[in-house]
């Protein structure tokens, strides 16, 4: 029997990391069926993950690579190599 809430929450995270075994998953599911608080907790966790994954990307500023090139040290010193 999965204990509320510590043990159940631990299993939720194992589940979210994709590490859960069949037995653990069955135990978690049967606990969730009878525990409203853990159900809510699990729902919130999954929603958090969904919200995070939904964020849009932002564009790199124009001329970025040129600006970096301008800041690079003139030539590499102390480097021993032969062309």
């Amino acid at each position: 029997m999965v204990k509320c809430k510590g043990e159940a929450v631990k299993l939720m995270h194992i589940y979210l990391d994709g590490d859960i075994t069949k037995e653990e998953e069955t135990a978690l599911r049967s606990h969730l069926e009878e525990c409203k608080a853990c159900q809510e907790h699990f729902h919130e966790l999954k929603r958090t993950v969904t919200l995070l994954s939904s964020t849009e990307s932002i564009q790199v500023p124009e001329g970025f690579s040129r600006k970096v090139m301008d800041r690079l040290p003139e030539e590499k010193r102390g480097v021993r190599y032969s062309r």
Partner: protein
Amino acid sequence: MEHFIIQQIKQAKKGDQSAFEDVISFYQGKIFQHCYRMLGNRHEAEDLAQETFIRAYVNIESFDTSRKFSTWLYRIATNLSIDRIRKKKPDYYLDAEIKGTEGLDMYSQLAANGRSLVEEVESLELNDHIQREISGLPPKYRGIIILRYLEEFSLQEISDILNIPLGTVKTRLHRGREALRKRLRHV
């Protein structure tokens, strides 16, 4: 494309500066984005992303070409971001104190001191709101959450990038998710 970039990295290792510009162009979007997510500010993100590539160039001798370049680059960017965050607000992020649930309660207290979440949601776009909540995480949780959910690295890749054990990645991810669950539950 990947093959071409690997060649350009090897050229840069030999001291060919112009080859490095191709390397920057190839990775700039991802690294800028990563810095932005870590810092939550475009201007600082640009500065730090530039710094990341400069560090990479200066230290390129130490890059082992049998490893993934992106892993190495993300590590530099993450470490620089964490340094920057810590210098900026040494007392604010409380990460030393956060252990288990006692620490997570502090988040609720911080949230309660500010505006209500409802007000915030109304005044900000969802994206900005999520970014703000991510920026409220202590840097060591923040990096892992960003790498996992915004940049979709596997747990093993995150362990390689940050050079920390897989178990530590999981523990921090677990705590980061719990902290964000509390912060985002009313969205």
